């Protein structure tokens, strides 16, 4: 009955299992329902723009993507789900049922991150893209929403996964970070803008949408690369925390 000798370190089956556990634990009915309403707001706004027959639809559609989608909808939805992924299991002590298994720790970090992306895309990114597409502002705007939205989802999910593992009340800290750094300091200070996920993803979205560069914009290549670097670093730090930190 010794089936456990020299187990393979990584199999797709174990990774999928971990991922599924995280998806199921973060996608509670209350969270999904409440935040889907917010996502549907993007669709409703897109519809309103479409029905307005305004001459300035592309501008309206861009302000939907910029002021609503990338400033608020995606960061907050990513914060709620990603901070819960490792945060909930660390807080209630069930993380041991994943940690005390023969898996490399990066699989846990990646599983939690993947689960967050899996949930945020249909809840926030998809409605934003649909809203932009039906607004009549042109397909390029929808493309910008998709590119910026996906990239923001990936970067915020990685950052907030780690935050959830490391601090209690990660949601409050994350809100403080979003409001103070991403939405206040980075909008005013050109230097800070370079280190903001929001400004970078917005720059990329504007490039894809062929919209004039917004305030404090960075080059679209920077806008693409910076969030990806943030993602990799955040995942590495989360793995390190799982490796070295105390598991409750």
């Amino acid at each position, binding site marked *: 009955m010794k089936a456990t000798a020299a187990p393979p370190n990584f199999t797709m089956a174990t990774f999928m299992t971990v991922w599924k556990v995280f998806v199921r634990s973060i996608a509670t009915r*209350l969270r999904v329902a*409440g935040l889907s309403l*917010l996502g549907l*707001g993007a669709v409703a*706004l897109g519809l*309103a*723009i479409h029905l*307005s027959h*305004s001459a*300035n639809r592309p*501008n*309206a*559609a*861009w*302000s*939907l993507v910029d*002021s*609503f989608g990338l*400033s*608020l909808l995606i960061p*907050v939805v990513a*914060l*709620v789900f990603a901070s819960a992924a490792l945060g909930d299991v660390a807080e209630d002590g069930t993380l041991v049922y994943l940690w005390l298994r023969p898996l490399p720790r990066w699989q846990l970090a990646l599983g939690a991150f993947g689960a967050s992306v899996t949930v945020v895309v249909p809840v926030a990114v998809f409605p934003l893209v649909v809203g932009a597409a039906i607004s009549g502002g042109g397909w390029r705007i929808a493309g910008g929403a998709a590119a910026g939205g996906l990239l923001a989802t990936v970067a915020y999910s990685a950052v907030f996964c780690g935050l959830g593992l490391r601090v*209690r*009340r990660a*949601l*409050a*800290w994350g*809100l*403080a970070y979003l*409001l*103070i750094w991403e*939405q*206040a300091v980075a909008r005013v200070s050109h230097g800070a803008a370079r280190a903001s996920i929001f400004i970078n993803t917005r720059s990329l979205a504007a490039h894809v949408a062929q919209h004039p560069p917004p305030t404090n914009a960075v080059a679209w290549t920077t806008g693409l690369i910076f969030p990806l670097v943030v993602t990799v670093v955040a995942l590495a730090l989360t793995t390190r925390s799982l490796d070295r930190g105390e598991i409750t």
Partner: protein
Amino acid sequence: MSRREDDVVAADDRAQIYEPGYRPYRGVRLGVSHSVWALARHTAERIMGLKRPARYKVLPFVTVAIAYLPAVAFIGIVALVPNSPRRLADLIPGPGHYYGFITAAIILFAALAAPEALCPDKRSRFLGVYLSSPLNRSTYLLSKAIAVIGVLLLVTVGPPLLLLVGLALQNEGPHGFVDFMGTVAQIFAAGVSLSLMFGAVSLAIPSLTDRRAFASAGSLLLILGSGAITSVIVFGLGGPKNVLALSINRLPFELALRIFTLRGLPTGPQDGFVASAPLSTGVVVGASVGLTLVAAAVTWWRVVGTEVTR
């Protein structure tokens, strides 16, 4: 406290034996108003993380510090560059425009403070314990409102007041005592109105849930989401400009500007230096009163009106 005859079981000239069983408190009872203040003070301490471990203090204190930071920086600029060309001092905002620099801090503080005041009592079922004291649901809510609004004054009155005093000490503020006191009065009026409005809105959301984190996220989504949606409607779609009165992240600051008798924020994009006319003061005042009353009514209905058995 005070000893009574019926506590004594046996006594003679030299000795007394007292009832060994339960002896109720017979001291002075301080009444409802004392309870309200005691609970308000306790709640305010909890919001600020006082009398709790350091990690509870970090977030509230950082947020408060962010609200004061620009004021300190402006005073510093004026003080350290004394003989600067007038143009530099002209760039320093007066107390009325100062709120534009700390909007994020005020909103964040409101979104964190009110859930801390209401949610733990519901989640730990401690509300019932309070209700067995001289407090009833209305006075309980009053205590909580006093605490939240009072703590909010820290970020709505404190920073502009500091700026005013700092500038006045360097002869950069209003000239003359009457002007100075007038500005102080404006700061208090604007600060109280901001605290009342954000207090009312941010208390309404946690009254709907007992999860602190959800309440904070919900308050923030409501405040910022209303701003984002109305700006898409007005600036993007060219909808009626009065829709902007529904943006909760804008309205309280509009009202504050009016209290300082300043022109409000433009209601359209500032293309080509032609700023569009701001909302009329009547709309701003009406919407502010309406918003505060609606939010207060929701909180009242949830805390006082709804029978919560657990």
